[in-house]
């Protein structure tokens, strides 16, 4: 009980309070601990913990291959990829310079020297630097295998955003309809064609939509028709008076409207969420420091 409960809670409480106090106390030792030492302790522990992770990964993949479980071929690829990266990271320099040219192996570099009849000597890259040297085998793997695969995953987001937007923008209820309208305004307002759409056209569309809403809500066609005709007349009269400027009244001009939506209701909502998140983090951290929350110890 002492080792599994009280000591871990005491450690969390002590170091949590120390790190918190570093924010308010003007003391170099405490500040260095909170900003540098503690983060370095964490990095060192995380670096060693990677061995545990790698062993676990290999264990599970080997079991899958050995037992020929379903789709074990993927595990075989994972194991091969792991050892490929491991070997070229730890045991092969993979970069031998002849002048400015880089070769993966010493033999290839020496053959190049002979072929070019050059007086240059073969210079192997330093250990450690070999993983970051341009043209090395490790960099080749990074550039031509790892990066394209990561980019492929990232690119999938474009398609997923489209499918998620399609579902979100279906006007099933009032909230979804508002989202749809706001989404259209933001999208149109942020592309060049948006600035070519006159604010008067938007006013006519708004007036017509309100008339549509009146009809749907009151079931009174005459009232809706009256509203539409009245508002159309008013907008037309106002248009002739003002000379139909494309960006006036500004509130109906899409680039201005999207900016207002983005900077006012959107920002207000996101700040409210941000304050909630901040408070949640503060309260959760204090619960750990004071030992109120012990679930992370499995309690």
């Amino acid at each position, binding site marked *: 009980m002492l080792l599994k409960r009280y000591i871990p809670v005491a450690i969390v409480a002590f170091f949590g309070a120390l790190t918190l106090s570093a924010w308010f106390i*003007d003391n170099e030792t405490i500040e260095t601990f909170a900003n540098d030492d503690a983060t370095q302790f964490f990095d060192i522990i995380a670096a060693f913990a*990677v061995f545990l992770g790698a062993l676990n990964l290999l264990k599970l993949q080997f079991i899958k291959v050995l037992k020929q479980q379903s789709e074990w071929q993927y595990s075989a690829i994972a194991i091969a990829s792991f050892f490929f990266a491991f070997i070229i990271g730890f045991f092969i320099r993979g970069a031998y310079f002849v002048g400015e040219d880089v070769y993966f192996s010493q033999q290839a570099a020496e053959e190049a020297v002979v072929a070019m009849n050059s007086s240059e000597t073969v210079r192997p890259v330093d250990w450690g630097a070999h993983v970051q040297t341009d043209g090395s085998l490790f960099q080749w793997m990074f550039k031509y295998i790892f990066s394209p*695969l990561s980019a492929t*995953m990232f690119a999938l987001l474009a398609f997923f955003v489209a499918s998620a937007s399609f*579902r979100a923008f279906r006007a099933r209820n009032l909230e979804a309809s508002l989202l749809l309208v706001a989404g259209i305004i933001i999208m149109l307002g942020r592309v060049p064609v948006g600035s070519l759409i006159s604010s008067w056209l938007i006013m006519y569309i708004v007036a017509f939509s309100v008339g549509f809403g009146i009809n749907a809500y009151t079931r009174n066609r005459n009232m809706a028709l009256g509203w539409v005709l009245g508002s159309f007349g008013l907008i037309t009269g106002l248009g002739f008076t003002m000379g139909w400027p494309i960006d006036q009244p500004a509130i109906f001009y899409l680039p201005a409207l999207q900016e207002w939506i983005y900077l006012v209701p959107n920002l207000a909502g996101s700040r409210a969420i*941000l304050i909630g998140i901040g408070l949640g*983090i503060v*309260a959760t951290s204090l619960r750990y420091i004071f030992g109120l929350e012990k*679930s992370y110890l*499995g309690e």
Partner: protein
Amino acid sequence: MNNKYQVYAGGIVGILLFTLALSALPESLNFFREEKSAMFAFTLTVIMIMLYEVRLAKSSSEDIFLRTIPGLKAVEEAVGRSTEMGRPILYVPGIMDMNEVETVAGVVVLGHVANMTAQYETELDVPVARAIVMQSARQVAKEAYMTQGRPEMYNEDMVHYVTDDQFAYAAAVNGIMQRDEPAACLYMGKFFAESLLFAETGNSIGAIQIAGTGSQTQIPFFVTACDYTLMGEEFFAASAYLSKEPELIAGITAQDIIKVLLIGFIMLAIVSRAFFDLGLTDFNLITWLNL
């Protein structure tokens, strides 16, 4: 005035006086960062309110009201659905390490989910992106299975490491979803661009999806693609909600009181700023507090 609020009012006055006294210490003794006085007073106020609420919760026999959070109520429903369908539950505790409070919160919620999977005898799969998270999650899951009296059901490999890399992890988790077709997918922790990759893949396999995160930029993606989303503070309240421990629920009450105080402070700051901008006064609260 209610006794509780008298205590808070007295406490806040005391904290302000203490902060002023620290700021007024002579140069030779001064170890206190005066420019952070406002934050110091706020932190002490939060601590005071939280500890007092916990004390009240301990001594009171009355239940503290906690509004229903649909996303958390759905966790049990998701576990039940998985049991009925005979399919596993996939739990993703984010892609960051234990130095992020959201990851810690995610691991804490995992404990509650593991309690339920132990009760219902449902398979649990937890792929993780960090080795330290793997160790912590294993400990939490193991304790949950022990608590439920089902140690034989606990398998260390139910929590397994995949990779540290963001998109490689996303690819691996998506692969697990496609192959194993879990009935429920729970995403609780810190997420970045991979959130939509997870949620859309989960959606395509017809899994019930519950997400919880404090990553503000990812909340819209989860709201769009998941069945339930715990937004920000709801996620941090999850542990208290699921454990039903009065001491932890008292922390949520404290949060609400602090929120009311903050709203009052924001209103005061707006009025002060308006008076300052209109030239009615030279005093600006925000500048005075170094905020």
